[in-house]
């Protein structure tokens, strides 16, 4: 695992040294000052909790939507012309997805114009706030569209590989109702199988940068945006603080991952 661990550790070592003022050309030797600043402000905490909360919402909505889609449209995801279309959202990089959402949902975007045309709204101001908004609608919808198609395809694959249709038939043969089969058989199996992918996707989303940058607010901000901003500040003295945040973030994620792996395996053997 040298290849994955070495760079990560090397990066962290550098970050740790820098956060204690031991590297970096502007440092004046060892200091706890940056960590004091870090713990003295709740900027990181707020931003982390916010990112975690929004990510949770995104993942829950996406999984529910994807379950509905994959159970109802297994065949359409699998075969025929519609199957190709399901892959379109996966071909959108985050930056492009964020751009499209902005152009569609901003107060002078396409939807606002349509609302204006049909006299539903009288001006850009009367159109609901959907980008850079307090409820993070723009961030959530963009992520949900991509994530739910990804999960749909994933779930449909599991559906097929696990022979869930046959399994459902057996259950029905034993007298189970359709809804019971879905609730008690299909959904648990899919979720169990897909768990590692969902976790991984969740971590990706938690660390996402481009979408919250384009569609978010200044406060609270996604954690990657906060850290990246600190790196790019005019004030070069802020750089060690950015490293403190990067370290804290990594540690927190490792704890979360560790907790999750203790409870569940991060992968499943196909047997």
């Amino acid at each position: 695992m040298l290849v994955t661990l070495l760079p990560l550790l090397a990066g962290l070592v550098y970050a740790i040294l820098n956060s204690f003022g031991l590297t970096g050309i502007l440092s004046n030797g060892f200091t706890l000052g940056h960590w004091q600043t870090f713990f003295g402000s709740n900027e990181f905490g707020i931003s982390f909790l916010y990112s975690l909360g929004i990510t949770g919402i995104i993942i829950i909505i996406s999984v529910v939507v994807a379950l509905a889609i994959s159970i109802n449209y297994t065949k359409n995801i699998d075969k025929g012309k519609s199957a190709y279309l399901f892959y379109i959202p996966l071909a959108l990089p985050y930056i492009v997805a964020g751009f499209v959402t902005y152009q569609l949902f901003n107060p002078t975007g396409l939807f606002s114009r349509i609302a204006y045309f049909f006299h539903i709204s009288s001006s850009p101001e009367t159109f609901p706030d959907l980008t850079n908004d307090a409820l993070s609608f723009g961030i959530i919808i963009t992520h949900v569209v991509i994530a739910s198609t990804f999960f749909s395809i994933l779930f449909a694959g599991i559906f097929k590989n696990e022979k869930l249709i046959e399994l459902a038939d057996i259950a029905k043969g034993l007298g189970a109702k359709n809804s019971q089969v879905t609730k008690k058989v299909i959904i648990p199996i899919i979720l169990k199988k897909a768990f590692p992918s969902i976790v991984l996707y969740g971590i990706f989303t938690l660390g996402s940068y481009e979408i919250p940058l384009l569609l978010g607010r200044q406060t609270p901000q996604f954690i990657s945006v906060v850290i990246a901003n600190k790196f790019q500040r005019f004030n070069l003295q802020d750089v060690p603080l950015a490293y403190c945040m990067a370290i804290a973030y990594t540690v927190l994620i490792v704890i979360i991952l560790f907790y999750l792996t203790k409870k569940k395996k991060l992968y499943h053997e196909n047997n």
Partner: protein
Amino acid sequence: MKIFVFLALIIVVLSACKNDNNAVSVDYLSKPWDSIVTSASGTTVNLTMWQGDPYINRYMNEYVIPQLKLKYNINLKIAAGQGNEVVKLIMNDIEVNKKVGNIDLMWINGETFFQMRQVNGLYGPFVNKLPNAALVDFENRFIGIDFQQKTDGMESPWGNVQLAILYDTLKVPNPPKDLTSLAEFVKTHPGKFTIPYEFTGLTLLKSWLITIAGGGDALAGEFDEKKYMQYSTELWNYINSIKPYFWKQGETFPNSLAQLHQMFANGELLFSMSNNDGEVDNKVLQGLFPASSRAYVFTGGTIQNSHYMGITFNAPNVPGAMVVCNFLMSPEAQYEKMKPEIWGDGTILNLAKLTPEWQLKFNTIPTRKFAPKRSDIQQYALMEIAPEYMIRLFDDFRTQVIEK
């Protein structure tokens, strides 16, 4: 796996060797210009600059690059990167003691200059070496002084601009020209004004800070904590008093100038702004802004500053970089750049020092259609203040305005 690691190591080691500082330390500063031009011929110069404007990019690609090739046999390669990114890069180079860097030349403005001086990342003083420096208007304090710092020949002037406010004459026939009338205007037109939380927005905040402090040279010289606290408190009070009438009730601010421009173009906002007083022409010509758009400055003044070219301390090609700087300051390159349909960037040359032919050309340059005349806004030009003001304003705008 082992093979893979091994390969990776080999690559690292090989490139490390390749990079191992076989810098030929020629002292170009003591060489005659002719020999610098000769050594520059046939070389490649790596320039890193912000490439966020199609007009600027076109000027570089379609004029500067071919001209340099033709006149000096120099290949100019342009990489995209903002000033602060280059600073981080140079800091890394200094940290690992990298004597031969990747970048020869960078486009800088005041805050980058401040950072680069902080870390000793610049080569020089080289500007006096350049023949065209004799034509530059160094007596002009908007050119010879950058953010209250003497440029000391460490950066060669390239262009000069002034912050301007953009508006649409059809929607705002009489734009507010001072802070009092702006406050009234914002209150009667809620949701139509905002400040971008980035470089241009900061330039506006600095301009207002100076205005509040009494204008002119009120904040000249080194950073003054007492003055800052006093006037910034007034500034935040002013902004907070009208913040509820800002775009999105002042709960958030746009992150980029691009977004501000787009919102202005669509009428979501009534004002946009630009660090370049000539930009409105270029945006109208691009079809981005309506043709009724105009630019103006506040009577309390707006900041005028220059932007520069700097050579990095570990530039692999110093003579090439110097020749490029010299060419960029030449009357022909400056003239081309100043045309509104090309870029519309102000010149740093002292026209009185030019030949009569060039004087005539500069004086009869096709005028800007939508931007105010340079001579009309010059009286409202404010000098950049010490960089610490900007750092503080940036942080405090967040704590005192956004998070309030």
